[in-house]
């Protein structure tokens, strides 16, 4: 504390300070002013660090994730050869259903080879494996579904768009370069050159990736087909449960505590409880969900109902705290006036105080929901990490079907090997952040529109 010692001589004779002009600052004044400037600079630096960290965070997510919304497809004439898809030649759907997806890969491979020959593309060391791994396994499965749905297309040549493998897709997103392709066992330089040649001839198209938003998760070796459809639906179901349970319960609890509760031991215990629950680590709520809802009650794992209940308990303190603040901000004169003209306590609260506090309550609820939407840790413990590829059915039965959740899907993808999943994880985070942004904007809008200053 150099300044403290500097300040003590103030009471001493001011002889030192009278010498020199008032217009030129003394050495001590300069030092104190420098300290002032330094201190202010620290403050600016702190804010700059915080803002830069925010910008860097958002930038890196958008940089990694934006490409998830684009996907590369092969656009080729595909000849569906009868020998492969219908080896017996009798067009019997039951017989054809026995041909597995893998065999359909041959149809695609042959078409690609035919196209290479027709376009006269010369690539040295282009191996069978390079062609085989050019297409996604998902493309084979789709082709199979197409043929089984409409056997009349067998033998014909169709213009098809088929999903490429994640490595080929990565070549157009900067994830796979010619140099890295040489080191990668799952792709090769020849495949890279083939992809570039196809791009030049217009046989590779990049389209907006609607499948990413609507399709379910896909297995480890087909990152290119993975989507967040089930996760969005699961998150939506959980938010529905949280909204339906947490809003009425939270508002009712706050009304009791703020307007009716006498000051006694019982209400004190409730108050302390709520304050502490708000600060309990979220993972502890996950343990509660696992022990109470799954092991004790026996609700099924990985389901929106358990997730929704856990998130409800987690969100309740937030909603109660903001609702109580909203109720508190309604001036007592309103209550006095209502009571004065003969309204009962209950009538005062429900007819006058609650409507006036509603904007504040809704804002708090939306913020609580936004918090719940991004919560991951408790959901990991109740089994939401399970690999779910079927959509849950419509509510209320759908609440008991296995589902995923957006943030958990992100975590899930970070645990996979293929780097394409990291791109998808960042893409899913962009979707999550967009949802959160919309919810917060709605909260700000509500506050601006209905907020009243008394």
């Amino acid at each position: 504390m150099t300044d403290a010692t500097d300040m003590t001589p103030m009471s001493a004779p001011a002889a030192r300070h009278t010498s020199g002009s008032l217009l030129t600052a003394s050495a001590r004044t300069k030092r104190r002013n420098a300290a002032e400037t330094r201190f202010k600079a620290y403050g600016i630096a702190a804010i700059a660090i915080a803002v830069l960290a925010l910008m860097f965070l958002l930038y890196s997510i958008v940089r990694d994730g934006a490409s998830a919304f684009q996907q590369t497809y092969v656009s080729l004439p595909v000849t569906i050869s009868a020998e492969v898809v219908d080896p017996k030649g009798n067009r019997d759907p039951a017989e054809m259903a026995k041909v597995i997806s893998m065999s359909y890969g041959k149809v695609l491979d042959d078409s690609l080879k035919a196209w290479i020959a027709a376009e006269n593309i010369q690539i040295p060391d282009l191996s069978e494996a390079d062609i085989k791994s050019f297409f996604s396994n998902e493309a084979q499965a789709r082709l199979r579904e197409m043929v089984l749905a409409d056997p009349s297309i067998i033998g014909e040549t169709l213009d098809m768009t088929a999903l490429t493998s994640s490595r080929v897709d990565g070549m157009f997103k900067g994830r796979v370069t010619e140099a890295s392709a040489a080191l990668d066992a799952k792709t090769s330089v020849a495949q890279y050159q083939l992809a570039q040649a196809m791009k030049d001839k217009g046989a590779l198209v990049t389209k907006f990736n609607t499948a990413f938003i609507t399709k379910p998760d896909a297995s480890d070796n087909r990152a290119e087909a993975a989507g967040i459809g089930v996760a969005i639906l699961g998150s939506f179901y959980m938010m529905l449960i949280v909204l339906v349970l947490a809003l009425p319960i939270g508002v009712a609890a706050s009304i009791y505590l703020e307007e009716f509760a006498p000051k006694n031991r019982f209400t004190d215990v409730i108050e302390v409880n709520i304050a502490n629950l708000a600060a309990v680590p979220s993972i502890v709520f996950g343990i509660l969900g696992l022990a109470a809802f799954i092991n004790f009650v026996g609700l099924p794992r990985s389901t929106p109902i358990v997730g929704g209940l856990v998130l409800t308990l987690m969100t309740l303190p937030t909603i109660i705290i903001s609702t109580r603040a909203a109720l508190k901000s309604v001036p007592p004169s309103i209550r006095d006036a209502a009571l004065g003209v003969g309204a009962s306590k209950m009538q005062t609260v429900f007819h006058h105080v609650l409507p006036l506090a509603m904007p504040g309550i809704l804002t708090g609820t939306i913020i609580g929901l936004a918090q719940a939407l991004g919560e991951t840790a408790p959901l990991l413990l109740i089994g939401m990490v399970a690999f779910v590829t079927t959509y849950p059915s419509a509510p209320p039965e759908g609440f008991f079907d296995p589902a995923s959740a957006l943030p958990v899907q992100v975590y899930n993808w970070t645990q996979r090997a293929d780097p394409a999943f990291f791109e998808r994880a960042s893409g899913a985070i962009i979707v999550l952040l967009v949802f959160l942004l919309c919810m917060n904007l709605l909260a700000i809008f509500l506050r601006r529109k209905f907020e009243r200053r008394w």
Partner: protein
Amino acid sequence: MPVFWIVLIVLALSAAGFVLGRGRVMAQAQGDSRKLHSRPVYYGWSVALYTALPAFLVLLIWLFVQPVIIQRSVSKYIPDEAIAEGQTRGIVMGEASKIASTLSVAVGQDVLTRPEALTLTMDDTERLDRLKAAQLPVLTKPDVLRAAQQYLRATHIGSLWLGIVTLALSGAGLVFALLRIRPDFRARNVVERVMRGLLIGCSTIAIATTAGIVLSLVFESISFFRLYPWQDFFFGTEWTPSFGGGSKLGMLPLLWGTLYISVIALLFAVPVGLFAAIYMSEYASPRVRSVVKPAIEILAGIPTIVYGLFALVTVGPLIRDWLAQPMGLGNSGSSVMTAGLVMGVMLIPFVSSLSDDIINAVPQSLRDGSLGLGSTHSETIRQVVLPAALPGIVGAVLLAASRAIGETMIVVLGAGAMAQISGNPFEAMTTITVKIVGQLTGDNDFASPETLVAFALGLTLFVLTLGLNIFALYIVRKYREQYE
């Protein structure tokens, strides 16, 4: 009977009760509402509440209990052989319930009649083809199909009884409440008492939650300590769980990792957050404040999984390539430093907004006095404002520390899974929360100490954070009283 219809009918009954109750009392009073004890609507409400509340309560409990009972009874129909390698009973049960819903859709679309669906077998190609033609293919094992049919049957019986019980209850409530109505019946008091009961019920949920947390942690921890000595858990320095047995489950390496990461996070977040708060409350113009404050608060609204991914994909490799490797301190992407820094960023808004409130609560007269004596702005802040705000700031830092200790996703993705006690911040270490996630995800065997240890870790975490929170809230509250 579908729940939707039950709800609708009960609501309709209760609306009818409202009209009837109101009409009945008005008729008794010959249309003169001044003869009544309460306003006419309250008579309506009293009937409506008696009609709807007991019925909905039963409905709610039933809906939670029925699937549990059905799951248990149907689960018996699946022999152990039907559960394939790598599957769990839950997955097979899920398949059975999927098929059951397919079948009920098929019945709904008149593809099959109800008895046909219940007697379907896997060799009945005619019915299976009909299902396939209607885009509702059923492909499964006979055992699972039988379980699905049992599921269908039980659900049908359950929902039938549910309908009968709730509607009967609702009707009985309606009649009972209607008969009670007379002009001197204190309807408003009855309605308000019921409402009050509902409000109190809702506010006790907070207590129930805490009790649930404590009970579930304590009971499972007790069964853990029966299997594993508590001394070894609390004072063991080795964490090597192995499901084959002979695991060492010492908590100290995890506690060390937790505290190390939290300290780094706080060393970053407290100065930055504090200086940001000081600048915003003492120096910034209202315009700057209105831009910067929300910007910093955005950091608080970002979910922790986003920070986790940021640590894993961006910060981890950056620290490894630019700091750890050039200094020869390690080449791990996930490290204490990574997790600590990212967590620090997460805590900035937490520290800054709490400190901001506390600094603003310091009375202006203290500042005016100091400035009037000739001290500069920064001298005022350092020697007058901060000492006055110190207890509150300490409270804020403690709250931030409790947040850091309980944080999960950032450490799961950023800190690694190596349980070790080491001083090198560029090495991967692990925390209590990481290991809770690690031991409890996937298929669990709730009889083995390797799974149950997660509950003991959870209890430790809960007690640790609860202690910090109570202490912090105590300090903050005590301080606030000084100036109000």
